[in-house]
């Protein structure tokens, strides 16, 4: 599904990602954890084709081409877009993707039915769909809107950038439930998170720790617990001691 070798990315003359190797197969859930500023969002963005990073080791593809090929990014900070309703834009997005896959455009009825089903999945108020994208939404509503869009677009590779951050426990449970429901054998998922708590709801197959632009250690779900208990400084100490390669 996704295989990256020695990925580097820099912006403003600064190297942010400094050689990342990552292989994610269909059906797997990979958690990527790391302290603030370690490069988690940058990794998510370059995988989605964001400019203007200087990137090596990735195919040159525009963001929309990646999206149509099946990459979905749930933004850490979803953008507010005045004047464009979620319904309108999502219909255009879905049909662009369907066209790319050689499918017919959905008619209005089928599209509405799809919206109804997927809003239920994340317990989202359907009224929000006719409002401008994310404008005036609460933090929780914005994150739900991301997972809702993911459900509608049905990606092959879902990248969730701190979808859990800033959520109260109820919203977290709803969002995590939505993501877990969308887990299937064809879909690969990268869960970027700063906290271990999301992983109580979604059990990852692998956990990677990103530190200063590199994946410094990988393991199973128990690695997340260890991180939670010992903090990121534990990684730092191990790095300094030279025990992590």
């Amino acid at each position: 599904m996704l295989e990256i070798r020695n990925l580097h990315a820099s912006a403003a003359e600064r190297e942010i990602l400094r050689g990342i190797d990552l292989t994610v197969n269909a059906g797997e859930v990979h958690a990527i954890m790391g302290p603030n500023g370690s490069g988690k969002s940058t990794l998510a963005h370059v995988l989605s084709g964001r400019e203007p990073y200087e990137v090596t080791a990735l195919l040159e593809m525009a963001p929309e081409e990646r999206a149509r090929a099946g990459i979905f990014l749930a933004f850490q900070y979803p953008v507010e877009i005045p004047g464009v309703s979620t319904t309108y834009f999502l219909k255009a997005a879905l049909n662009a993707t369907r066209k790319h896959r050689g499918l017919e455009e959905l008619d209005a009825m089928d599209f509405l039915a799809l919206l109804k089903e997927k809003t239920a999945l994340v317990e989202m108020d359907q009224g929000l769909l006719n409002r401008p994208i994310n404008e005036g939404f609460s933090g929780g509503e914005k994150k739900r809107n991301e997972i809702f869009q993911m459900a509608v677009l049905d990606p092959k590779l879902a990248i969730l950038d701190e979808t859990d951050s800033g959520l109260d426990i109820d919203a977290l449970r709803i969002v995590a439930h939505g993501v877990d429901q969308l887990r299937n054998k064809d879909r690969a998922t990268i869960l970027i998170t700063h906290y271990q708590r999301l992983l109580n709801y979604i059990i990852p197959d692998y956990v990677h720790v990103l530190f200063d632009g590199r994946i410094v250690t990988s393991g199973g779900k128990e690695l997340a617990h260890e991180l939670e208990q010992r903090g990121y400084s534990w990684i730092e100490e191990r790095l300094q001691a030279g025990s992590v390669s």
Partner: protein
Amino acid sequence: MTELEEARERYCADFERFKQKAARNGGGWTYPLRKTAISRFAEVGFPTTRDEEWKYTSVAPIVKVRFRRADPRPNGVVPRALAQTGAGELAKNRLVFVNGHYSERLSSVGSLPGGVKVESLAAALVNDPAAVEPYLARHASYQDHAFVALNTAFMEDGAFVHVPKGCVIDEPIHLLFVSTSNGEATVSYPRNLIVIDSDSQVKIVESYVEVGGRGYLTNGVTEVIAGENSVIDHCKLERENETAFHVATLQARLGRSSNFVSHSITLGGALIRNDVNVMLDGEGGDCTLNGLYLGTGERHIDNHTRIDHMKPHCVSRELYKGILDGKVKAVFNGKIVVGKDARKTDAKQTNRNLLLSEEATIDTKPQLEIFNNDVKCSHASTIGRLDENALFYLRSRGLGLETARALLTYAFASEVVNQIKIAPVRAGLDDLLTARLQKICQA
């Protein structure tokens, strides 16, 4: 002799030829007015960029063309050509003017409440001077605006709308100005007079389209006199081609507790200058001036607005938005004058501009002159580009770059479009904008 002086003499000489015609046509009583106006023009001549009000707009491209006054050509437009512009179908009540002259054949007015007049000004000048004379040219000042002076001197036709007291007209009244051409550069002087008596309500749409006209000049003036407690919705749609010159003044005087909404939409033209002036002349008046200008190529679009708060407790809201592509030069100048008696004035002005190219420019200037302390006035102006984060967000969902750009640009415009209350106008404009923006964003 400079080009400007030569042009001034040319127009004055033309007036000597025109005045016999004006007298012959029966509106002879207007002669003193016309004479005063042309004398004023003879004194001031065309403005230059040394003129504060014309600082960023040179009228040289207009001045150097030898326009001929447009003749009435009632058969010059076939209804089919008109229908293709889509403009004909906006409203049941429509007065159509071809090159500034009323066309009875193309016009149609449904049944209106008794006492309401919706007719050609040329006819009213002759048949109904008592209804026209108290208002005509009493509000749009020809003293300090050369083009208003020329319009006042040369006006021949336009719409006369009079709504008597306590009369509500739901159906919009569409004044449609169509320009054709027989290869010559012509000038027309549309003149509209809209008098709404107290407690009445009306919606007026003024649109300018071309059916094959090229290189012509429209020099228009519309006067609106709003009585006490009246409600007026005015919408101007300018959608001529990239060779047209268009200079127009909308002058409104608002009585006590009246409500005036103006939308000025500029989608075409080579050189456009719109003046919208509102005099809040009674306590508790409320006015909204909105505008949207979309420019491509090498167009020059100048919007000047002026709101005079003369009396207490008046509210004014102003939102002008511009979308500028190519090498367009745009100007926004918004003046708000708060008189010494206008306590509790509440005025808010906003001008936002979206630049789609490196070469498009905008000169935007708010001008507040406040002679009372007990007021709330604010203004803001911005110049920006499409938000990169929003673009990436849309693209990351699968929308193509062009589609995403068009969608965000449309969203920028929709803040103005959505405020238009006349549904068919809003819908028609929506379609036009969507098509235009798709084209612009593909380039």
